[in-house]
């Protein structure tokens, strides 16, 4: 059975806003009605964000995942995003190979991809720390990202850690690079402009100082607005979609 790991001790503001909630709400807001959106393995936050966007402002969004489910309506959310539950409610099975083909021919609107490390150009490392043949740390691998990042119309990256080892000026190994649009972190949202990640907004419980200090590349904080905190409507919908806070599994360790 699924066991949701309880994680406490997140920085919160006076209103009790936690990183996981701010992140999924920020990710959901980036999605548009009618677009075709995909997430891959190990993607609980994108899963919740897509379901949230569908519930709120994007009822005609087409939700695609690795299981082949299209617009799945799982009764309970899984911890693994290749789970058979993500076919529940689907009227067809659109296989992973078909999804990759769709991205390759330019028909995938938005992909969510993760990166263990992300650099100032929005490229990701999911492969190795150290030399490829003698790695200090062998990471899981980029899954489909080297094929999807350059071919999807846009990619939204996310990472639940924000520190100078995660956000670096230049990667030692580039698993994938390409059409990055936004990067959502526990502290802020970056937008890729003129080939570099630039701050778009800073979450309410963080600060320009904190983001500067925890980002391994220079960022301009002057005039960067605060991410609007989740509305009552967003919070209510999120509570309905993910009452067990399955999304917290991404904050384990």
């Amino acid at each position: 059975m699924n066991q949701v790991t309880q994680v406490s001790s997140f920085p919160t503001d006076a209103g009790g806003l936690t990183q996981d909630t701010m992140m999924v709400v920020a990710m959901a807001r980036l999605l548009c009605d009618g677009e075709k959106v995909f997430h891959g393995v190990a993607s609980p936050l994108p899963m919740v964000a897509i379901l949230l966007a569908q519930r709120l402002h994007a009822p005609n969004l087409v939700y695609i995942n690795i299981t082949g489910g299209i617009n799945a309506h799982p009764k309970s959310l899984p911890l693994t995003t290749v789970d058979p539950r993500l076919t529940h409610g689907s009227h067809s099975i659109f296989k992973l190979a078909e999804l990759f083909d769709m991205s390759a021919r330019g028909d995938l609107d938005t992909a969510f991809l993760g990166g263990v490390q992300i650099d100032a150009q929005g490229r990701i490392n999911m492969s190795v720390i150290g030399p490829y043949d003698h790695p200090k740390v062998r990471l899981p691998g980029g899954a489909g990202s080297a094929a999807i990042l350059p071919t999807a119309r846009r990619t939204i990256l996310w990472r639940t850690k924000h520190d100078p080892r995660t956000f670096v000026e230049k990667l030692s190994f580039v698993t994938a690079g390409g059409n990055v649009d936004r990067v959502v972190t526990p502290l802020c949202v970056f937008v890729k402009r003129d080939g570099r990640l630039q701050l778009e907004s800073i979450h309410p419980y963080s600060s320009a100082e904190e983001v500067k200090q925890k980002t391994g590349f220079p960022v301009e904080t002057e005039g960067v607005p605060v991410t609007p905190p989740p509305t009552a409507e967003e919070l209510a919908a999120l509570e309905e979609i993910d009452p067990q806070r399955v999304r917290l599994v991404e904050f384990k360790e």
Partner: protein
Amino acid sequence: MKQKQTTLAEAIASVADGSIVALGGNTIHRAPCAAAHELIRQQKRRLELIKTAGAYDVDVLVGAGVADRVSAGFIGFENVFGLAPQYRRAAEQGRIQVKEHACYTVITAMRAAVQGVPFLPIAGMLNSDLMQARGFKTVIDPYSGEELAAVQAIRPDVAILHVQEADEEGNGRIYGSVYEDDLMARAARRVILTCERLISSEETARVPELTTIPGFLVSHVVLVPNGAHPCSCGDLYDYDYDYLARYIEACSTPERFQAWLEENVKAEKTEKAVSL
């Protein structure tokens, strides 16, 4: 006609050391775990494993010294248990060759094998360091002059797949997610099929379009209820969280891992494989 329905031990005995083996399923879902355990019991060596995204099956085969090459896009237990401990350790110690792919290049490599061509071009990939690190080459489109990544064919010697239903001729039905199982069956030289339930060949003939894996591609079919355990199997059963948690814990030291193999894999015998 040759009898295809065999025991798990007989089926796995047909896998030669050094083989290229495609494993069905994806991460901790519908992976052929009972067959993987039998590969360990029979002390197979030097296998190359092919998969888009693997977890327990690949990890335990690497840890037991059965596989020394892994061609895959992703090996890990997702957010549930994180990095794959045996795979990671073996890669860092240089005991295995990690042939990292994008999942799409695994698919394209098998499609090339299906079509009988040495390689296929693919969109994307060019700005990835995997091109250099993995020796992926490029080709020039003779029509437009555009440069494209060229993925070399992978023809597995055998695809090992676990499905919900099959008949005695090996016609297999997959319910729910297919993952890459159908492609693996067509790219490989032959298929070993394990199944949750045997159905009659009259039943598969009644609705042939429900057959995902054509029996003529299958060399062995084995009835193995619970054959994906500890992974999930469609809507029949969930993954076994507690078993996987114990596995991850046992991977903390080589001694504990060996003890775990003894207790959970080697002592398991083949009682799962119901005698026929």
